[in-house]
C-alpha cells in the first residue's frame, strides 16, 4: 500500500512559523480525540484522588521512560494562552527539560518561562518547585512507576485488589522491616503517601523532602505514567500524608551546609564534586528559586558577589 499523504514533497516535521505549529501534526502534537480521552481520564482521576486510572497512552516522539505520561497530560491541557515551565531534577536547563520545552514551543507555539510564579503549567521530573504554588496553576509530574506497591507486590492484579480493599498491610510491614533492620524508614525518594486517608499513592520519584509540599497544595497535581498507561491526581487542598508510625514519624532530609550560590538553608541541595581531592559544594537543586534568593540576598547586602 502506498502512503496516502503527500509527504514526499514536503517531509513532516518542517516548521510552519505562521501557526507556531509543525506541518502535518495537530496543535500540541496529539489529535483532538486523544486529547479528549486524556481529559476525561484526568477528570476521573481528580474525582477519585490518588486512584490510578488506566488510559490508552499513545506513543510519543520521545521514548518511554523519558516523560511520555507527563507530556501527554500537558499536550491535552495546553492552549495558546498558557505559559509553560519544564523542570527536570529541579532545573530548567537539564537535557530532558530543554527537550520537552522545545517540543511544546514547537508544536504548540506556547510561551515558556523558567519562573515558577509565571507558569500556568509546570511539568516536572523528580522535584516540586521550592516557590509555593498558587491556585490556578497545574503541576504535571512525570511518573515512571505509578504503582506504589510494585516492589512489594510485582503483580498488577494483586495490587489492584489491595487498593480496592485498602488492605495496605504490606506497605506498613515494609516500613516496619526498614525500622527493624536499619533503625529507620529507609525510603528516600518516591516515598509513598496516603491521599485523603484512602489511597496509597506514589508521589513519583521526588525526594521525600518535597512530600510535605503536596499536602493541601492550592495547585492541581496531575501524574502521568505513559509506559504504564496510568493517570492519577491530587485535587487542590487535598490532604496528603507520608506513611509513618506514631513513634517513627516522617522526617525529611537535612543538610549541614547552605547553598554555595545563594546561601539558602531551607532548600533541597545537589552535591557537586569540584575536584579529584574530595572537595564538594552544595547548591540548590531548584535553579529558579536559587536565582531569586541570590538576588534577594544581594539586595539586602550589596557586598555579596
Amino acid at each position, binding site marked *: 500500500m502506498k502512503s496516502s499523504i503527500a509527504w514526499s514533497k514536503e517531509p513532516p516535521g518542517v516548521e510552519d512559523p505562521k501557526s507556531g505549529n509543525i506541518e502535518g501534526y495537530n496543535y500540541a502534537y496529539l489529535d483532538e480525540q486523544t486529547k479528549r480521552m486524556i481529559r476525561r481520564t484526568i477528570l476521573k482521576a481528580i474525582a477519585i484522588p490518588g486512584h490510578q486510572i488506566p488510559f*490508552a497512552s499513545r506513543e510519543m516522539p520521545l521514548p*518511554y521512560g523519558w516523560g511520555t505520561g507527563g507530556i501527554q497530560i500537558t499536550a491535552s491541557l495546553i492552549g495558546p494562552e498558557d505559559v509553560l515551565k519544564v523542570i527536570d531534577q529541579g532545573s530548567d536547563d537539564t537535557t530532558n527539560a530543554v*527537550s520537552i520545552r522545545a517540543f511544546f514551543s514547537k508544536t504548540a507555539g506556547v510561551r515558556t518561562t523558567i519562573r515558577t510564579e509565571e507558569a500556568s503549567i509546570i511539568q516536572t521530573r523528580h522535584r516540586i518547585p521550592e516557590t509555593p504554588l498558587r491556585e490556578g496553576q497545574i503541576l504535571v509530574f512525570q511518573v515512571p512507576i505509578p504503582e506504589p506497591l510494585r516492589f512489594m507486590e510485582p503483580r498488577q492484579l494483586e495490587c489492584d485488589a489491595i487498593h480496592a480493599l485498602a488492605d495496605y498491610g504490606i506497605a506498613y510491614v515494609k516500613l516496619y522491616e526498614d525500622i527493624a533492620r536499619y533503625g529507620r524508614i529507609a525510603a528516600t525518594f518516591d516515598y509513598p503517601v496516603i491521599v485523603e486517608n484512602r489511597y496509597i499513592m506514589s508521589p513519583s520519584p521526588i525526594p521525600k523532602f518535597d512530600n510535605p509540599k503536596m499536602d493541601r497544595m492550592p495547585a492541581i497535581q496531575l501524574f502521568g505514567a505513559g509506559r504504564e498507561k496510568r493517570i492519577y491526581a491530587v485535587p487542590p487542598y487535598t490532604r496528603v500524608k507520608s506513611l509513618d508510625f506514631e513513634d517513627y514519624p516522617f522526617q525529611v532530609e537535612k543538610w549541614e551546609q547552605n547553598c554555595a550560590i545563594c546561601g539558602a538553608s531551607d532548600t533541597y541541595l545537589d552535591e557537586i564534586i569540584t575536584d579529584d581531592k574530595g572537595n564538594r*559544594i552544595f547548591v540548590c537543586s531548584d535553579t529558579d528559586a536559587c536565582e531569586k534568593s541570590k538576588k534577594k540576598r544581594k539586595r539586602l547586602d550589596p557586598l555579596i558577589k
Partner: protein
Amino acid sequence: MYVAVKGGQRAIENAHKLLEEVRRGDSTIPELSLDQVTEQLGLAVDRVMAEGSLYDRELAALAIKQAQGDLVEAAFLIRAYRTTLPRFGSTCPIDTRSMQIERRISATFKDLPGGQVLGPTYDYTHRLLDFSLARAGDSPKPLGHAPEAFDDRVEDSGREVVPRITELLEGEELIETVTCDGERSTADLTQNPLKLPASRDVRLQNLARGDEGFLLGLAYSAQRGFGFAGHPFVAEIRSGEVGVTIVPEEIGFPIEIGKIRITECLTFNRHDGSPGCAPKFLLGYGIAFGRNERKAIAMALVDRMLRSREIGEYIRYPAQDEEFVLLHSDNIEASGFVQHLKLPHYVDFQSELALMRQRREEFEKDENYNNGGETHEIEHRVVEGTARS
C-alpha cells in the same frame, strides 16, 4: 563550576548537529535513497513495519534511513508518526486463503493441496559470505520461469484459493476447530489500555506488535522445556500478498483498498486432554507484516503458551505468564525505559547518598557490626537487603 549543571541548551543543539553529520557519514559516498532501502533492505523494512505497527514501506524506509539502520529506533519513529494518523475505520478480516502465495510450506505433511512452495528463502542456503556481492554489478539473472508449484495454481484460475491446513483436517476432530466470536468487535490496544486477564485477540495484537527478539527468546525457552511438554509443529507457514477491504458505511459493499504482504503461521501442539478438553492438537497462531517467518513462528508458539490458563495447564514458566509476556513485549516501551537511566538522577542519588553516609556513620560506631572478621559477611547481607528494597 556551575557549568556542570547549566548549559544544556547549546550542548543539545550541538549534539543534534553532530548526529546529522554522523548519520550522513562520508558525503563523498552517494546518499541512500528510499527506493534502495525498500528494494534492497526489504526485510529490515518488514520488521520496522511489523513492530512500528504501520504498513507503509516508504515511511519504514525513511525511518530506517533516519535511524541509521537501528531498527528499534526506526520502529519507534514509525509508532510516533502512526499515533498521529486519523482512523477511518476498520478493515474486514483479511482472507489469507486467497493470498497470492509466494511461499507456503507445511512441516507436518509432505504434500498437501496447494503444494509446498518454497519461494524466496534463506532456509536452504549455505551461510557462506558471497564475496561476489562486494563487487559492483550485483544483478542476478532473472529466473525466466515461475516456480513449478506456482505454475500449477496459475493454470487453474487467476485468483486461486489455497485452503489452510486446518480446513484440510477438519473432518478428523484431532485438530481444534476455531470458532468465530462474531458478537464482539475485535479489541484494539492502541485505543484501549491492556487489561488483565487479556482475551486472545488482545494477546495476538500485543504479540504482533511485540519485539521479535523478545518473542524469539520466549518461544525458544518454551521449546527448550520451560513451557512445552511436547514438541510443537509448524503445521503451515505462508507468505504473500493479500487484499485489504473495507466496507464504507455510505456505500455498503466491500471495496479493496490495497494489498499488503504478510506472513502467517499455524502451529500444532499435542494436548493429552484435561477436564472439559478432549485430547487433540491445539493451535498456535502467528502473523507479521511482510516476510518474517522467525517472528510469525515465535509468535505462534508464544500464543499457544499463553493459552495455558484457558486449557487448565499449571502456569509455571515465563512464556505461559500473560502478565510477564504482554507487559514486556513492546520494544518501544522497553527501549525507552531501559535507556531513561541515562537521564540525570542527581536528586534521587543525592538522597540515597545522604542516607548511605548516615548508615555508614552508625555502622562505624556500632560495635556489634564492627568487630573484625565478621564485617564482610554482614556488609554483604545488607547489600542484598537493599537490592531487594
